[in-house]
């Protein structure tokens, strides 16, 4: 048994898992506050990556400026999507809403293929991100470490926002019960728009980070699908669950890779393992680890 490889993969798993956790949080944020299952979350992430990359490469903007601009762009994009596509669907059956977000995902995929091309593109090496530092004997690229730090920062900001700010509390109130929220003077429409804005913005950040870690390409949208098992494991409506789910999926993926590479030699176990877990979890704990149990009588 190659224990060094195992440790290396576990560390990778934790780092990637944190990033999954961040995207899963965005997904849960939208689901919890607006009851929309957003299948286009992965495309949001890719869009963020592309916008930042083109600003840096084509417009020649310094990275931080481009990054700031990307944040603003993604927030506005989230609000526009919510206003134009999802607001008219309030009160429609969940299946229609799901169809619309799947449609949005396909539409965005094709559009990005057309505008940004089909090839993977790398960010210029801004932070010396390819250099390697050693943590306890394991070699880790700086970019990975930065991504880990950024994920932790985002999670801390989320925690602070929902715990202590006026708007964060208002969003939680809206998620709990819209009528009560309204009776307190909270505008539900405004809260919905805010949920989409934050979700798109943070997904965009994750996209930029992934772009720096590997490269920006349309296939990054797979993260949107990976996030599914993460979210289901954690329970659809739990933000903490999303983070834990993300970590579990990230670690599991890499464990699967290890077992596959060392013993089984099937190949590609890496991509499918999370979905086996998804099925198993749904069989034994249909509401996930942290989800609210809804008893529905038919």
């Amino acid at each position, binding site marked *: 048994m190659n224990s060094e490889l195992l440790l290396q993969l576990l560390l990778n798993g934790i780092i990637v898992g944190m990033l999954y956790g961040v995207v899963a949080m965005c997904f849960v944020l939208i689901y919890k506050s607006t009851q929309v299952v957003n299948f286009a979350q992965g495309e949001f992430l890719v869009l963020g990556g592309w916008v930042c990359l083109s600003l840096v490469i084509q417009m020649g903007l310094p990275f931080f400026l481009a990054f700031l601009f990307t944040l603003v762009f993604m927030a506005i994009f989230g609000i526009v999507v919510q206003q134009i596509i999802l607001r008219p669907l309030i009160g429609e059956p969940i299946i229609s809403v799901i169809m619309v977000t799947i449609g949005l995902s396909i539409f965005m995929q094709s559009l990005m293929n057309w505008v940004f091309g089909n090839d993977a593109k790398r960010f210029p090496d801004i932070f010396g991100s390819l250099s390697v530092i050693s943590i306890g004997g394991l070699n880790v690229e700086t970019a990975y470490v930065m991504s880990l730090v950024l994920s932790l920062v985002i999670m801390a900001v989320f925690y602070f926002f929902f715990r202590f700010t*006026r708007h964060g*509390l*208002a969003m*939680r*109130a809206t998620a*709990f*019960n*819209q*009528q*009560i929220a*309204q*009776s*307190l*003077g*909270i*505008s539900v429409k405004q809260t919905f728009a805010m949920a989409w804005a934050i979700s798109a913005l943070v997904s965009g950040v994750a996209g930029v980070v992934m772009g720096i870690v590997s490269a920006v390409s349309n296939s990054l949208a797979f993260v949107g699908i990976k996030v599914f098992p993460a979210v289901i494991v954690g329970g659809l409506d739990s933000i903490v669950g999303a983070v834990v789910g993300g970590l579990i999926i990230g670690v599991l993926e890499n464990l699967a890779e290890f077992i596959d590479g060392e013993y089984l030699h099937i190949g590609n176990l890496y991509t499918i393992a999370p979905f086996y877990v998804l099925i198993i979890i749904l069989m034994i704990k249909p509401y996930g680890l942290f989800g609210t149990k809804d008893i529905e009588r038919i």
Partner: protein
Amino acid sequence: MLAQTDAATMDVSENSDDIILSVNNVEVVFNEVILVLRGLNLKAKRGNITALLGTNGAGKSTSLKAITNLLAMEDGEVTRGSIEYEGEDATHLGPETLVRKGIFLVMEGRGILQDMTVTENLRLGAYSRSNANIKAEIEQIYSYFPRLKERTGLAGYLSGGEQQMLAIGRAMMAKPKLILMDEPSMGLSPLLVKEVFSIIQRLNKELGISILLVEQNAKMALKIADEAYIMENGKIVLDGTAKELMENEDVKEFYLGGGGERRSFKNLKSFKRRKRWL
């Protein structure tokens, strides 16, 4: 009896400055077909406690939601009539605007955000006031309800009485001019009901907040109210000062649990009476 009620009504309509809320001939329809309020008329005087009494399904809660414009979420809609708050038309103002203007509804079943802490609930009470000095104000609320201060866990674990106090405290955080209370006595023991009602009285006397109180517990409500309306089947059937209503034979029989032989509502003159508004 009739003359007395008329005199009371005259009083109310005379001085329009004193009236903080006036509901004129309001009709509410649910799902575009179900008529729930059929021409509701009532006026709440500034600085008074006005009680709105009635049995289950009379439309009391719907009236309060119509006033605060919260019906859209239940597919309800005000189809006729108008609601005036402080002399201005407020029929179609959004719920956020109404809260900012000083109308606050304490919902039936208290409307506590159960997965948040007591402090977070109180903070959200002040949501509409961005310049609020939250910390000091929360301390002030705790001085009214010392029991809440000790509860650091989630609001969902509070007892019914504590939740009601939290709901009232949260309403105070909004610094409203008019509080609408939907059945504050619901599910509480008689002793707690007494406590809650004395708090409502304090809000009214000490802070000068006008109160529109919806209740099934007519006896308690009439004790603290200045004026009262009795509602049946989506409209007002009787009104007057609380004192008058308490002495009214019909009210005694139907709502206060006294009286002799049973009669039908239909045979009662006062219940047939309807005001004309046009």
